[in-house]
């Protein structure tokens, strides 16, 4: 509860700056909008030439794409400061600040920044998802809607955990932005049916850097493609394992190993 109150205070501060720079907010959102729109145009142009992509129809691919953008956007909305941790906070010595306050340093780091650019991803993601849902003639039961929410939350946690692990490396190396960038880029694969990629990539995205669980695997379940039992539960387990590993192991030993560069 205490953390919730603190988050509200941070949020209020943030909203004040947002009101100050309204154009910037719009530009940021618009940028992600353009990126999303161009990926959609890409998919549409391809499907105007072919009936299906390795057995996946246009609307099924859209379903996966839309679903993949929702957790990506939600994570982007809340944990964008992890990029700055990886890029500059350790190197410049600014990170000391988080260790000196009487709140959890990771919570402080994350609460400090709220990234409305992410609405570009979330809005497009939800719209495509809704469109594909209608076109595929799906009708979820209450349980399925519940599972969808769980799958999305697990997806968010997977994104956040992977970002946390990538960013925490900076606690040893001072900077890990490039590394985090490479790992994050891998999520591009998860917006499309995993079955079209090579076995190597599929294995990595399922077992090493589990972006496959963010969209493709739950989407297959919701569309009604053959999947192994308890699909959504597996996603939750993967998310929890990665979060525990990221927070308890990598982040915490990173904090122990951290040496300030001076400020």
């Amino acid at each position, binding site marked *: 509860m205490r953390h919730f109150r603190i988050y509200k205070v941070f949020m209020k501060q943030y909203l004040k700056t947002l009101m100050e*720079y309204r*154009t*910037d*907010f719009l*530009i*940021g959102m*618009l*940028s*992600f909008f*353009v*990126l999303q*729109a*161009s*990926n959609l*145009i*890409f998919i549409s*142009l*391809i499907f*105007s*030439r*072919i009936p299906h*992509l*390795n057995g996946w129809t246009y609307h099924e691919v859209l379903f996966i794409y839309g679903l993949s953008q929702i957790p990506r956007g939600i994570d982007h909305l809340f944990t964008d400061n992890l990029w700055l941790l990886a890029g500059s906070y350790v190197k410049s010595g600014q990170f000391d600040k988080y260790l000196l306050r009487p709140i959890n340093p990771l919570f402080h780091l994350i609460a400090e920044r709220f990234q409305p*650019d992410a609405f570009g991803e979330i809005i497009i993601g939800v719209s495509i998802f809704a469109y594909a849902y209608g076109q595929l003639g799906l009708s979820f039961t209450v349980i399925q809607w519940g599972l969808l929410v769980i799958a999305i939350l697990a997806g968010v946690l997977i994104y956040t955990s992977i970002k946390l692990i990538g960013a925490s490396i900076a606690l040893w190396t001072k900077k890990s932005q*490039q*590394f985090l*960038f*490479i790992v994050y*880029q*891998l999520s*591009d*694969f998860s917006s*499309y049916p995993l079955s*079209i*990629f*090579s076995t190597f*990539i599929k294995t990595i995205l399922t077992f090493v850097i589990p972006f496959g669980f963010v969209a493709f695997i739950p989407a297959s379940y919701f569309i009604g493609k053959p999947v192994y039992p308890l699909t959504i539960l597996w996603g939750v387990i993967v998310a929890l394992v990665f979060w525990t590993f990221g927070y308890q192991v990598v982040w915490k030993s990173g904090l122990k190993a951290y040496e300030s560069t001076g400020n």
Partner: protein
Amino acid sequence: MRTYFPFTKATIQEILAYPGESFLYIFGMTIGMFVVYYIWKVIYTTGSNTVLEGFTLQEMIAYIVLSFGVMQAINNGTVWNIAMDIREGTIIMNLIKPINYHLRVFFQEMGYVLFICSIVLVPVILGLVFLFKTGTIVSMLLFIISLFLGVVVGFLFDFLFGMLAFYIKNLWGIGFGKNALVRLLSGALIPLAFFPDVVQKVFDFLPFKAMVYAPIMIFLGKYNANELVGIYLNQLFWILLLGLFNYLSWKKAVTKLTVQGG
């Protein structure tokens, strides 16, 4: 010229001081390329088509790899550097020196372009011509001319975009949005031939085609002599027009420039 070459050299030295970072960044960027590669590969190998919009699978792969390289050269730091100069006020240091600001930034960015050429584009085109027999030595040379013109068009466009920093604080948003826009409209994401005919007509009146699509199509030998000349003229036309826009907007902006600190 001799005044400006040191700027090119300085950029190259900067990159070479931390080569790991640049290599990792480029490596990260190749991931997007692989996503697209696999999608096309599935399309060609599972569908009934062996030629789509005039592209064979091999030409399509060449197109994907080349457009990746050209896009890296086009997306040099121009927007970011100009925006930062304006935001931080360091631009004032350039105004009090007897050098042309546009030329300075251009030569600075050429350092990055040369770096991309030497580690990405040169190996790629040599590999395509000699190993995969896609493209010829002649088309390679014609490509290089067109690539250079395309980079200049890209630079002039970026310069105009970077000047948005006079009005907008979200520099990261500006750079990111510009990249996304250019990626789609220049043919870096998908060859422009895949767009509906009406849209392609519109592209003929935009500067983006001159940046990525046109040079690569030259490399792949898709143009006859007349079309080739037309492409070069089109690129020169955009250099002149965007150059004029830059000249006018710069003249206006400088008289209005207010630097806070610097």
